[in-house]
């Protein structure tokens, strides 16, 4: 529990994801962590942003996950988080809420800039394995769309690499589609796969089940 006076929590996003999954929360990961989950070159980010389905019951499940994580509401200038009631009404009339949990910072963004929220983002979202947990992640193109719409200075700093990475990945997928058109049609009809890396690639230009390599973008 993140109690006043307790040691600051180490950032372990996999624990946050596990709590969301254990409570069957419908959500997608967005923002910098979402881009990292796509293998994109991003400066390190020490929080995880999610957009939940705003169905009342789902927000109740989200609140339960937050309670399990010992979440408190953070605000600038306060040395300790503010303990607030966590239930399905917590998110009423809010656009973004920043929590500090036992596993580090956690943002809930109900309607990210440039999007219509969960129904919009889930359409193209994919599940990515992260420390053994399946994580629903907004499409990289949607993450870029949101950052572009937000227009924040920090997003201008990272968008060049994100856009270039997305373009290169899209180009790889187009080449793969040209090389394996019949196999991709069959692949789109299947759900999770036990395929090996030698199987035809998925729509993202990678074999389903293939571990993602590190993207070696501009380095220090």
């Amino acid at each position, binding site marked *: 529990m993140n109690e006043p006076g307790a040691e*600051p929590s*180490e*950032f372990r*996003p*996999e624990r946050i994801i596990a709590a969301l999954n254990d409570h069957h929360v419908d959500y*997608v990961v967005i923002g910098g*962590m979402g881009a*990292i*989950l796509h293998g994109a070159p*991003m*400066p*390190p980010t*020490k929080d995880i942003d999610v957009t939940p389905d705003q169905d009342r019951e789902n927000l109740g499940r989200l609140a339960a996950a937050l309670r399990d994580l010992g979440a408190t509401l*953070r*605000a*600038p*200038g306060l040395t300790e988080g503010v303990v607030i009631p966590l239930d399905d009404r917590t998110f009423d009339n809010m656009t*973004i809420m*920043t929590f*500090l949990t036992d596993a*580090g*910072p956690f*943002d809930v963004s109900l309607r990210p800039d440039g999007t219509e929220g969960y129904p919009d983002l*889930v*359409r193209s*979202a*994919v*599940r*990515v*394995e*992260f*420390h*053994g947990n*399946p994580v629903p992640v907004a499409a990289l193109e949607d993450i870029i769309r949101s950052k572009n719409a937000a227009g*924040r*200075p*920090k997003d*201008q*700093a990272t*968008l*060049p*690499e994100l*856009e*270039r990475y997305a373009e290169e990945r899209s180009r790889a997928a187009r080449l793969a589609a040209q090389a394996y058109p019949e196999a991709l049609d069959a692949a789109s009809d*299947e*759900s*999770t*796969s036990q395929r090996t890396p030698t199987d035809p690639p*998925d729509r*993202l230009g*990678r074999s*389903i089940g*293939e*571990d*993602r390599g*590190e993207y*070696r973008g*501009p*380095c*220090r």
Partner: protein
Amino acid sequence: MGVVERRSAAAGLLLRARQKAGLSQAALAERAGVPQTMISAYERDRRQPTLETLLRLLKAAGFELRMHLAPYDDHDDVLAEWEATRPEGEHDAWLRHVRAGVGAVLGPVLADE
């Protein structure tokens, strides 16, 4: 694995504009009537352009900057305050932990429903 550079917003804007225009640094410099070394210095944050200079370079790349005032978003201040409480040296270890955990793409979300 190297760390992606942190760059300024001005450097990011200039680089994005040049990439979208499909221009080399030399080509943009020629269009803008400035040395290529200036473009390089700005994109690498070795120098900071004035706002007017940035707008001129963006124009040379075929873009303009639309600006408006918005209420200050303190979200990153909250995060920065939390980061300041973290132990020295944790950062790199954390980054390795996160990247090491990223695995395979399992499929589209809506296919499960």
